[in-house]
């Protein structure tokens, strides 16, 4: 394993980071920030801290905050993980950095 890493390292050593590499990483960071903002909003936000504000909106015998705490946050997490995977795998192709 260590040997494998050393080999890759040597090939990388020769290559300077290109604008393309930097743009790829920046795009990744941007995507992570978007996903984690939504992640925090639906769970820690709607499900916990902001629940009192959503009390007025009723969902089947309870309120929207309760629904987010017990169902909605999980469904959003699912959408987020698949969105991130799809978008990043597309970026890998777009920036020519596919494995």
């Amino acid at each position, binding site marked *: *394993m*260590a040997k*494998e*890493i050393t080999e*890759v*390292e040597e090939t*990388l*050593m020769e290559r300077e*980071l290109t604008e393309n*590499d930097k743009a*790829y*990483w920046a795009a*990744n960071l941007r*995507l*992570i920030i978007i*996903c*984690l903002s939504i*992640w925090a909003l639906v*769970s*820690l936000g709607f*499900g*916990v*801290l902001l*629940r*009192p504000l959503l*009390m007025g909106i009723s*969902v*089947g*015998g*309870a*309120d929207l*905050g*309760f*629904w987010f*705490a*017990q*169902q909605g*946050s*999980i*469904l959003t*997490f*699912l959408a*987020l*993980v*698949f969105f*991130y*995977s799809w978008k*990043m*795998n597309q970026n*890998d192709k777009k920036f020519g*950095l*596919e*494995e």
Partner: protein
Amino acid sequence: MSQFAINFIFVIGTFIIYTGIALWARARSTREFYIAGGTVHPTLNGMATAADWLSAASFISVAGLISVGYVNSSFIMGWTGGYVLLATLLAPYLRRFGTYTVPDFVGTRYGSKSARVVAVLCLIVISLTYVIGQMTGAGVAFARFLEVESSTGLLISAAVVFVYAVLGGMKGVTYTQVAQYIVLILAFTIPAIYLSLMMTGHFLPQTGLFGTHEASGVPLLQKLDQVVRELGFHDYTADVSNKWNMFLFTLTLMVGTAGLPHVIIRFFTVPNIQDARWSAGWALVFIALFYTTVPALAGMSRLNLLETVYPDGTDQPALQYEERPEWFKNWEVTGLLKFEDKNGDGRIQFYNDGTLPNANKGFVAPEGWAGNELKVNNDILVLALPEIANMPMWLIGLMAAGGIAAALSTASGLLLAISSAVSHDLLKNTLLPHISDKTEMLYARLSMVGAIVIATWLGLNPPGFAAQTVALAFGMAAASLFPTLMLGIFVRRINSKGAIAGMLAGALCTVSYIFMYLGWFFIPGTNNFPNTPEHWILGISPLSVGVIGALINFTVAVTVSLATEQPSAKIQMMVRRVRYP
């Protein structure tokens, strides 16, 4: 055929399947032993991850935990939300880096044997705490369904894990986990669907929870709120006053989940980074199937239990003890339900001692109130479900197999995390660097044997900390491993001194805070402060402190790194390798 015989056939049948998989999936190299050759399909790895994740405690106890009310929603959000962190911040990069274990990444990225050893120690504290609960859980599942001593059940489970984990390593563990996931998810969701159809007419429990309670015609949650309120409990959907602590607790569970080594190593088994990303999504699909069902099951079975005790409504006399249903009698034998006729009227008065009957004048109890007469262990909300909902006998057999599958799959994942850290990180990469692949493989198998023996012994003689999985394992994972892994990927400037100082500071602060309230090394009576909200520093409960520990780790790691030298050019190149192929 008796129920015992059916349960026996189901359990033995699944054991034969697991053993068959073990014989087929033998590991032939260390690469196969540690990461299943890196050839697992992302969807299958998702299933294996879900089985790894859903433990005996999730299967048997989580619905009971959630049935307390809204406040425990933290567990649902925490134990699923961690996968978003894992998918965006850790799993893909660690897969691309291509190490075999979690301490392997720490040791290689920071170029330091000391960092590797500190990571191994953190891993062992986390995984050992976690595995004891799984071993005892397997014993309990056996005892409940097959009427054997729980210690016998534990030994049988250890023997089964022994066969596929020692022979197959990660390869054997992966494919048995896939089979175990299928067994456990069927066993959990089918009874929930039955209950949902019975109470709300909804096929999907997830929508049934927010549907109409058919017997009364009002929304189920509204009915539940009303019934528990009349019996003097908090409203089921009531908001909590200590939002700050609920916020921290949820976040600690999320960050802790992402930092658990036995979950992270599952993502090392897929072919490449793209698959690692998809696999995180699939894992969450299979986990969400379980965790969206849990709250539905929790609410419905709590209401169902209360309706059994008050068949004509809470303003009418409670159920006559003599008329109690058959399942009630069965679970009285196990001690999970306990009735004591305090006022001698032959009826089961079940309510919250503290607030009734003054709170509800309309409540009828001709013989007077002498205290709550029914003690309920919340585990029966799941365990007694098949009988309550009048399900066919084969389904009860399936539940027996499902509970045991949940325990075995998590135990084997944890044992693999422990044994590979010992053989690959402590032996191969620290103490005995010159051993061949073949010798390392032998040591890997021996470490697995050792881990199973130790876990079995600890399961039979559980130490005090075994009951503190949530505090200790999640707190430590959040405070020690998660920040170190994340900084290793995202901040090139972090050097080994920073990483080591960060891990130690995060772990020690977290553990000390827990010990201050729960007793030093969990020895009763050695705590410095009573574990009550008014004594918590800044209102932080010892269960929620992990995320504070993570912040300490981040701060110390960055400060120490900035005060010391740059990481070497070689290390900086390695960080580049984590980010770009």
